[in-house]
């Protein structure tokens, strides 16, 4: 199993001129450390106008800085918003390819379409059309990366023949993903042969059905890119504490503040009846404070030993990667975030090497022990 970190660039009020700068600088320092410690990926969201929750509207710029400071860690656009009124598809392809060059071929290209009225409404986009827009754009971008004369006449954008430049360094192109927060999108990811980038902060139980559907359907996919990216990346929280009590006090509080912030966003599901938004993207944000502090199983907030146990649930569900939020603004002091990453790398990561995973599978096979049962599906 591989581990990554991800950033929303939350900036809580009260704000000063330094607040956003501090968030960006601390994130870059954390990414440098994560790279040295052996974390596999760093992802950054694209959001617009989401006060406090996310000040991350130009992820390519930030990720270029991250790429320049690191050597191995994969650079994840998580995601590029694939809605032509917001980002012209050629500009998405150009910026992603430039990021792939700057990072030396480390780009993981995530796609998506926004889930808040704040963003979609600001650009005058009809929410009913976003799924179709995304579908058109993700079919065009691999062609832009691989064809010298790209031409497109679609429902949502058109282009005369042009050579979209630069081309990515990865051959044929970077791995493609889509942000998944509903069972429908998990199926659509599989049908298109792209990776499932879970964006709902949930537990293994929340992902179990999504992963099963994805694995079943992707075997018969019609890939939109030049290859199939059959991988599942789950999202969760991480705070690896000194002991269980410190971990829950520090990490649990930060997680609660994040969920609280998310709960006050205006998701499309509640106020815009649309066939394109059948699931509430922010459903996890509506967990109660009591639930957060009880830190349901599979939530990697705890002591190293607790986290190892929790991550085994993820392993059993069949995800290859877990990518984790590591702070909400300054809720966890920067030095504690760095210490958490170090503890995780020292005590937890070694338990999830390919060899250790194979040993566990073999032991389970011979003993009939299926390991810890995942908790029941959330309702």
């Amino acid at each position, binding site marked *: 199993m591989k581990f990554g970190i991800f950033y929303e660039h939350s900036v809580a009020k009260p704000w000063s001129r330094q607040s956003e700068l501090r968030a960006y600088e601390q994130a870059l320092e954390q990414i440098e450390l994560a790279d040295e410690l052996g974390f596999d990926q760093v992802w950054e969201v694209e959001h617009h106008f989401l006060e406090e929750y996310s000040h991350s509207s130009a992820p390519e710029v930030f990720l270029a800085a991250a790429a320049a400071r690191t050597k191995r860690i994969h650079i994840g656009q998580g995601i590029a918003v694939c809605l032509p009124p917001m980002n012209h598809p050629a500009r998405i392809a150009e910026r992603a390819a430039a990021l792939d060059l700057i990072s030396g071929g480390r780009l993981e290209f995530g796609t998506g379409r926004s889930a808040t009225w704040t963003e979609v409404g600001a650009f005058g986009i009809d929410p009913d059309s976003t799924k179709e827009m995304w579908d058109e754009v993700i079919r065009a971008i691999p062609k832009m990366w691989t064809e010298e004369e790209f031409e497109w006449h679609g429902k949502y954008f058109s282009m005369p023949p042009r050579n979209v430049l630069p081309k990515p360094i990865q051959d044929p192109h970077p791995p493609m993903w889509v942000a998944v927060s509903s069972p429908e999108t998990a199926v659509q990811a599989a049908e298109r042969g792209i990776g499932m980038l879970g964006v709902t902060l949930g537990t293994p139980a929340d992902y179990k059905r999504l992963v099963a559907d994805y694995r079943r359907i992707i075997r018969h996919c019609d890939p939109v890119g030049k290859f199939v990216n059959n991988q599942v990346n789950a999202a969760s929280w991480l705070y690896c504490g000194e002991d269980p009590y410190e971990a829950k006090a520090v990490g649990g509080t930060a997680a609660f503040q994040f969920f609280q912030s998310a709960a*006050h966003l*205006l998701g499309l599901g509640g*106020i815009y*009846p649309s066939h394109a938004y059948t699931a509430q993207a922010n459903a996890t944000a509506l967990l109660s404070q009591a639930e957060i502090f009880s830190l349901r199983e599979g939530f990697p907030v705890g002591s190293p030993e607790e986290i190892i146990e929790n991550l085994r649930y993820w392993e059993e569900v069949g995800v290859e990667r877990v990518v984790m939020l590591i702070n909400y603004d300054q809720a966890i002091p920067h030095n504690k975030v760095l210490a958490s990453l170090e503890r995780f790398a020292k005590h937890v990561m070694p338990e999830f090497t390919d060899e250790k995973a194979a040993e566990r599978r073999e032991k389970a096979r011979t003993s009939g022990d299926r390991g810890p049962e995942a908790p029941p599906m959330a309702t």
Partner: protein
Amino acid sequence: MPDPGRASHESYLVKLPAERADYPPLPWKCAGATMLNVYFEVRKEVLLDRLPPEFCRTSPAYCRLFVIDHPESPVGPFREATLALGCRLNMMPAAFVAASITDNPKALAAGIFERGYPNTLGTIEFESGRTSARALIADEKGPLVEVVMPALQTIEPSRLAYDHVDAIRTVESDGGTRGELVITARELAIERAAICKNTRIEYPAEHSRSAWQILQCRNVISAQLVNLTRTFAAGSRPQ
């Protein structure tokens, strides 16, 4: 972090009628009702000025305006218009009543005594057909707001869900009055629904001190016309 409202409960007190009006006991089941519902963005500062501190605003701030035409009820036909502030209560979606009007004195009395809204007498024009709908809301000073839905498209009713509506109910207390927060929920059984993507909200005459116009629409989010059975029930204290 959450941005709580700053309106006192006292700011929502209304004058109780001298005698408790004679109205049938609640709940009233009102079949054949039609609701025009529209969500729109408003300025956050004016919303926070009218939102009690139990509630927090969303980002962006928004309102829900709904007009219900009841052709039949235990008090005869009546119409009701409500302007509610979109908000969160304990992180969950809610709507808080900032202003409300009805054209029926018995519905008004039941609203004031039992549920906090409707609490003002006025007039409501309401027209709805297969392809369009319109409502014009007025109080004693004249027309306040008009909602026009020029082109309706039928949708699957299961796509719609409406949050509970909360209001301040004026109650007698120690020789005076005080406000208490009450919730009305699960009042709407939706039978048919349509959406309108080019809804207009207009202000036909200026009433700059009226909540209906202070909470002015900055951007329409979505609008629906719904056929339903409405249960007009007493409000309950939040758990």
